Every structure is written in C-alpha cells, then in structure tokens.
C-alpha cells in the first residue's frame, strides 16, 4: 500500500533555518544540517528545503549547502530556490537531490519544466505555487509573496501537468505559520484539476490537521513547517515528528478514501 507522505517543509535564509508567518517575520529556528540529522533519527518520509533568499536576491543556489544536505539526508530531498536552468537542475540532481522545486522560473519560462523532465525524468520536477486567496479567487505569487504572477493555481496545475511536471506543491501564503489547519478548498480545487501527486503546505497545526487532509484526499503529501519545528503555545523550537504508530493511524484513514474528481 502506498502511503501519504508527511513532509517537513524547511525554509533556509542566510544559511540558517527560519520559519515565517504569512511569508513574513522569519524566526531563526536552527542549523539546517543539524535539523536533517534529527529528522533522520525520526525517519521522516521526505524533506522539502526551500532557499527563500536565492530568487529575491538573484543568487545562484547555494551548492555547498545543497551538497551537504543531500549527503546527510537518509530520506528523499526536494530542493527549491533560485533554480533557473537545466544545467543547475542537473548539477543539483547530480549532488544526490531527488527532486528540484521550481517556482518563479516555472512561471516565467514554463518550458523549463519540460526541458528538465526530458533529461532528468518527470519524477524529478516539482512545481511549487505560493498561493494567496483574493476576492476574485486564488492567485499565484512569486518572490516570497511579493510579486503577483497574475495566474491562478488551477489553470497552472493543468499546464504544468501537460508540460511534464512530476508533482505539485501548493503553499498557502494566508495559512503559512498560522497553524489553524490547511486550506482544504484550495487543495480540492487543485486536486480536481490534475492527476499528479499533490503536496499541500501551509497551515498544519496538529496531526489532526494532517489527518483531515488525508481523510479528504486519500494519498497526498502533507507538508508542514511550524508543526515540526515548534512545540507548545510559546512556539519553543523543538524538532518533532509523528512516530510510526501515529503515522499508521493517519494513513489508515486514506484507505477509506477513493478520491476521484
């Protein structure tokens, strides 16, 4: 039985891990390699690491950090941040990263998706959409939520599937760091639009929130930042992750779901 993936989503800024709230006020939460070591011990399903400086500062991806992360990870790693070319993607995959996340570059030049998929395989291309709820529906933003892409995630999800992406990550700007649950309506609208693996990020405040995502959509990627780095109402930094029995209990709920749009 294939299981839902429960994924810590980590943000890197100035070589440290940070956690944001609605994409602002980044709080330092620790050292990336140290976090990976702890997540190794906790046997996490997968990791997403997003460098939130690279695109806005116009930097190349931090290859030495990526190389170190990939070498340390005993679980699959998805890296995003500043990847604009096939050559960069190939280098990063060559360092032992499983998946490349594209965001602004996929919006600016959608053909990058097919270029990478043809060489590195469709399974290595992940498209991340940072989404804000607006009066006229959901809209994609880039550059850490500062730049409207004038595109809605439903149409873009259909497009990236046709171009050969292997996974879509929907990151809710409104729910980021709020820990009050996922935006299930947003998740549903994208789920109905395409058949690729879908991962939802933004809003999980408890394992119950992950449970409701899984019981709504069946097999899904449930990603979370705050939930796995903070503990308690004072948001003390403490890396945590469900144990095997807790994960099994969450996954059993997926068996009852046969989500067909």
């Amino acid at each position: 039985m294939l299981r839902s993936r429960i994924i810590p989503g980590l943000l890197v800024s100035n070589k440290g891990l940070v956690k944001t709230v609605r994409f602002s006020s980044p709080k330092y939460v620790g050292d990336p390699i140290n976090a990976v070591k702890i997540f190794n011990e906790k046997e996490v399903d997968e990791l997403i690491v997003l460098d939130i400086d690279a695109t806005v500062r116009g930097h190349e991806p931090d290859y030495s950090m990526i190389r170190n992360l990939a070498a340390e990870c005993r679980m699959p790693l998805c890296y995003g941040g500043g990847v604009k070319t096939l050559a960069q993607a190939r280098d990063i995959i060559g360092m032992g990263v499983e998946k490349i996340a594209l965001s602004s570059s996929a919006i600016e030049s959608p053909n990058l998706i097919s270029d990478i998929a043809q060489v590195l395989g469709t399974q290595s291309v992940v498209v991340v959409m940072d989404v804000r709820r607006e009066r006229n529906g959901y809209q994609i933003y880039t550059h850490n939520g500062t730049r409207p892409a004038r595109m809605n995630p439903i149409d873009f999800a259909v497009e990236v599937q046709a171009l050969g992406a292997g996974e879509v990550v929907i990151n809710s700007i409104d729910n980021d760091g709020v820990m009050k649950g996922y935006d299930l309506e947003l998740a549903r609208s994208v789920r109905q639009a395409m058949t690729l693996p879908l991962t939802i990020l933004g809003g999980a405040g408890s394992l119950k929130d992950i449970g409701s995502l899984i019981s709504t959509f069946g097999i899904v990627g449930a990603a979370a930042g705050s939930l796995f780095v903070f503990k308690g109402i004072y948001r003390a930094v403490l890396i945590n992750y469900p144990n095997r029995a807790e994960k099994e209990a969450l996954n059993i709920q997926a068996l009852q779901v046969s989500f067909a749009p």
Partner: protein
Amino acid sequence: MISIVNYGCGNITAIANIYKRLDVPVSIASRPEDLRDAEKIILPGVGAFDHVVTCLDKCGMRDPLNELVLTRKKPILGICVGMQILARRSDEGVLEGLGWIDGQVKKIDISNFTRQPALPHMGWNDVAPVKRDSLFAHLEVDPRFYFLHSYYFDCANADDVLAVTDYGSSFPSAVHCNNIFGVQFHPEKSHQCGIQLLKNFSEL
C-alpha cells in the same frame, strides 16, 4: 571493495555515507580504470532511461562493467533507473540498456486506477520478497521503501523476480539473476530498511 559507479546520474554520496557509517570500504568509480579493484558494484541511476544510458556510455563504463559482471561474475546492485538499465529496452527511450536480465521496462499501467494520484509512483510502499535471498535478510516485518518512478522492470522470466510491490497491480520491485541484483526503490533514502539492504549487499 564496493565500487559505486559515478557517471553523473544518481546519489553517490548518500550511498557512500551509509557505507562509511557501516565501516564498509567503498570507492567512487568515475573513470573505467577506477573499477579495476571492484569486488562488488553499485550502479545508481536517476533520470530518463536514455539520459542514464548516454551518461554511462559517455563515461566509457559499459565495456568494463560487461567484463566485470558477465565474465568475472562480480555482484552488482542496480538502483532505480540503475535497475531499469539492466534490461535491454525501455518504453521510455530508444537506446539500448545493458541487457543483463531478460525483460523490458514498461510504463506503470494506470488504466484501472480510481484513486489519485496516479504517476509517478511516489512515496513509501511495501516490498514483499517472493524468494528467500540474503539481500532481504534481517529486515523489519513489513519492510517499506521509498519509490519515485513511472516505469517498472517487466521480467521475461518469473524466476528473476526477487520482490514485488503493489501499485495498481503488482510489479517487480527487485530483480535477481545470478550475480546481478536490481531494486526499483531507493535504499539510500529508505532509512533503516535501506541501510540493512545495503549492508546485506556488502555481506553477500
């Protein structure tokens, strides 16, 4: 010495790090002459079939690998697309694989899928050995491994199937013929189960 073939297509460091922790000596073979002392070989692989085959040929690894594996019978473990290129052909491309295990690489059939997502097959799934083999010794009950692929190895001989996994229907997730092994999943990214499997390969 276990030689990990480094031809720009796969997670060499993650595999090497696991062996380092296990105290098993490994070497990274980036040129054909690096394979000279290979007692065992690991052939990783990430990417599209033709891309992986092209990288292997460009590095000049095909002939020395043929000699080591077919003539000198050194044990080899292909991982993910490194397993798929053990076949001669893939529906994903037009180039010729190594052709060491009889079969063809096909796209996973999702025609009777009611559940989403469909492809790629991505995530943790069960691996059920169908033969007793030391590659799968000492694993925990209900071992599970990380998969990330859309194509699978369809063996021509049922005897070559070492383990199966269910995704829509059952497909070979590990193959074995004489000294040649292949796994579709990523042991280097599968926590304790993966570490144990790599340890088992080193002790064959």
